């Protein structure tokens, strides 16, 4: 039982030579294919360098371009040469100069000797793969692809469009079902010979010549016709990223590769000295390859490149905010109007739920961070001008920096309203509003209604605009809006709902409601405002007199008389 190797080489000849010597030293005959694009001088020097190895020969040279037929022609000719010259060969391994044996080749030979009838070639039908480049899957078998995707992209794309327009559908040769898979295989002599000697080979070759990326489907499809036993996996560890480009292994992957138990890995960065020094290295001989960890790491990389970290804005991730599903990293809570009724709202919220409770982050004087800090996490300054220079990113930064905690902040009509629309549209925001809360603040200022009338009108107008934003059709935040009268009707229920919402499963029943301000005389104050010609409709309906009983407000049109 012997293993033979077909090796495709087009670059990094010193490393290729090193690999060929590995295989040859282990008693594997090697047929090398040097790409036609390689200059004659380089080729000759390479051949001369390997002249001392009797069982290394060179195959006829073809021009191998990514996605084109040349690579198949090269491996066909080299395989033929290998099988003809070495009748004792039982398995043929297709490798490249950038493929590094991780385990001793003797272990690979023993593994194959124990499985003499098995072809190792990844081979799956088009419906089952998602890694095709350029959005072509089934069509790669039903259209023609005479143009190079790399060099002639416009012609390539144009010809695909034209064929789609003309509804061209190539006939797939009878008897075969297109399969795809990694181009690095290890086939038995029996299967490989049958593919090369197939009486219909000319017809197959003609067909596959104009299929797209034949090296991912030629052997993968035809092996199915002849195999006695096919294991649909490659013995070569090769990972591809979202553009269909192979991932490259570096020195820092050494442990990962060693633990994988894979026989061969690619692509190895030619200058990864530590890898070339360390491998092949011994392991338990009966180890089965398992690539779980490596798969996860590369899947994460693809994820990071395509989806990224939500709510992060930085020099290489700047999504159109409108398209982002949630502008910010994690959920947060906005409370409006509550602090007018509950003086120590932040303290109470923190005690109840353990979340970070800020004051009015968008107050006009400064950002009131939790604990009154002048600088908060990540180096955010409480300076209002700095904040208002880019208020949206002030908020995205705040949430990103504190993404390990739930944060909540107070908002109100007296604050800068620059993030109004963001609070309406951000799916991560949970916005609780008691409308008319500002009326309590004005009431508690002790000033008569005649003095605060215009301020009341202004705050009401600002708040009603915020409510309109929250109620707009494209608002996506979780919104809970109630009038002051409604809130005062059942404050404990509302506060319980808020703490449940913030603390999630950790929420507990409210031990006791927070201290609330004394509203004795508030109804009279509201009536006074009305008597002054200003209707505080957002506060809801309060029964006349001092009793704080609320009535359910009817929807109504906003009107404000006299704003001076």
């Amino acid at each position, binding site marked *: 039982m012997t293993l033979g190797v077909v090796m495709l080489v087009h670059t990094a000849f010193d490393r290729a030579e090193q690999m060929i010597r590995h295989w040859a030293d282990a008693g594997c005959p090697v047929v090398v294919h040097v790409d036609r694009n390689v200059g004659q001088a380089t080729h000759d020097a390479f051949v001369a360098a390997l002249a001392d190895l009797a069982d290394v020969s060179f195959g006829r040279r073809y021009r191998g371009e990514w996605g084109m037929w040349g690579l198949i022609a090269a491996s066909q000719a080299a395989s033929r040469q290998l099988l003809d010259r070495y009748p004792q060969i039982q398995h043929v391994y297709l490798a490249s100069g950038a493929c590094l044996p991780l385990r001793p080749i003797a272990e690979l030979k023993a593994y194959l000797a124990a499985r003499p009838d098995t072809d190792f070639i990844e081979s799956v039908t088009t419906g089952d793969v998602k890694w095709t480049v350029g959005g072509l899957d089934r069509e790669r078998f039903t259209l023609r692809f005479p143009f190079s995707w790399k060099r002639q992209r416009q012609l390539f794309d144009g010809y695909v469009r034209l064929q789609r327009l003309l509804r061209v559908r190539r006939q797939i040769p009878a008897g075969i079902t297109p399969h795809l898979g990694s181009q690095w295989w290890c086939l038995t002599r029996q299967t490989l010979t049958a593919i090369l000697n197939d009486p219909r080979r000319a017809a197959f070759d003609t067909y596959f010549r104009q299929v797209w990326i034949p090296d991912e489907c030629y052997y993968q499809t035809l092996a199915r016709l002849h195999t006695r036993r096919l294991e649909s996996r490659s013995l070569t560890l090769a990972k591809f990223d979202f553009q269909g480009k192979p991932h*490259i292994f570096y020195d820092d992957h050494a442990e990962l590769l060693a633990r994988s138990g894979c026989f061969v890995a690619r692509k190895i960065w030619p200058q990864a000295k530590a890898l070339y020094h360390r491998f092949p290295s011994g392991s338990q001989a009966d180890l089965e390859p398992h690539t779980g960890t490596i798969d996860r790491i590369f899947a994460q990389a693809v994820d990071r490149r395509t989806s*990224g970290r939500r709510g992060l804005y930085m020099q*290489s991730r*700047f999504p159109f905010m409108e398209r982002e599903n949630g502008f910010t990293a994690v959920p947060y809570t906005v409370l409006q109007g509550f602090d007018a009724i509950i003086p120590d709202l932040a303290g109470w919220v923190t005690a109840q739920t353990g979340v970070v409770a800020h004051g009015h982050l968008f107050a006009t004087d400064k950002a009131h961070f939790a604990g009154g800090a002048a600088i908060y996490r*990540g180096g955010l300054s409480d300076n209002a*001008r700095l904040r208002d220079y880019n208020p949206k990113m002030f908020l995205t930064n705040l949430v990103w920096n504190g993404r390990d905690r739930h944060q909540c902040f107070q908002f109100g009509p007296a604050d800068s309203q620059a993030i109004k629309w963001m609070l309406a549209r951000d799916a991560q925001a949970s916005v609780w509003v008691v409308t008319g809360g500002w009326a309590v603040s004005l009431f508690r200022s002790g000033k008569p209604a005649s003095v605060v009338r215009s301020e009341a009108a202004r705050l009401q107008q600002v708040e009603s605009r915020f409510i309109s934003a929250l109620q707009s059709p494209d608002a996506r935040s979780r919104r809970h809006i109630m009038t002051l009268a409604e809130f005062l009707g059942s404050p404990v229920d509302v506060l319980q709902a808020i703490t449940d919402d913030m603390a999630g499963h950790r929420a507990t029943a409210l031990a006791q409601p927070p201290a609330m301000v004394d509203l004795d005389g508030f109804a009279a104050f509201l009536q006074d405002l009305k008597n002054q010609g200003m209707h505080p409709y957002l506060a809801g309906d309060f029964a006349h007199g001092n009793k704080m009983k609320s009535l359910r407000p009817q929807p109504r049109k906003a009107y404000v008389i006299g704003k001076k």
Partner: protein
Amino acid sequence: MLKARDLTAVQDRTGKIRPDDVLLFCTFRNEDQRLPYFVQYYRDLGIDHFLMVDNDSDDGGRDFLADQPDVSLWQTKAGYGAARHGIDWLTYLQGKYAHDHWALTVDVDEFFVYPFCDSRPIRALADWLDASEVRSFGALLLDMYPKGPVSAQPYQRGDDPFKTACWFDAGNYVMSRNTMLRNLWIQGGPRARMFFADKPRQAPALNKIPFVKWQHTYAYVSSTHMMLPRGLNLVYDQHGGEKTSGVLLHAKFIDTFSTRAAEEAVRAEHYASGREYKSYETRQGADPDFWCEWSERYINWRQLEGLGLMSKGNWA
């Protein structure tokens, strides 16, 4: 480029440049103290050849560089401001020597950090970018500062500046898109919060595109903040993904600062006639203490990655 006339070769070793070499371009003035560590840092990263322009230094930096086997050195006495902060000189040299090379353009106080830089040389990054058909690589200029007044911890020639200036602001950067040149305009960090709180628009730009597969048709527009053709400025993803990116650790705030700031304000040749330097002068004397409770202490690139200041993207 008429700026060619400004340049006189002091030591021209460009004949040694091989086709695959990664090149570094830098212009400097009176940086003798910083140069040894700078050269060592980038040599360790795998820079093959340094192309340096000395803007009329009167310290020993020129002699030091001329002795380095991998440095080519030019000098000029022309004005730094008139040559767009030295970019004109470098553009000339890049056009002449960097065509088809990966070129890193940095200041003497900027230290390039990219994903896996502790285990993979810069050539690995260049090869990977080539394979990914990426032509330019973005980085955030991250201002580093010591704990306590800058002058309290003197910098010794050859020292790692980040032994003392090892703190940074992790999450106060704001950005917007420049619709004309398509680059991101990033501001923030300690300078914005200390010096520009009342005029944030004037805070220095922190977006950089330092690493480029150079073609002679390319040019930096304003320092290394943006480039032409403008497609090179698209170092960021706009659909939610993260492109691979790095950080330029900015060792601006080490103790040479106080004397430098005073000097530069007089020279008034830096950006907008030294506006930035004048701010330092007036706001803090010239000895600021940037440190705050939330300052982050620098560990390595993985930390910066985790904080969201740079990204591995799909390089794994």
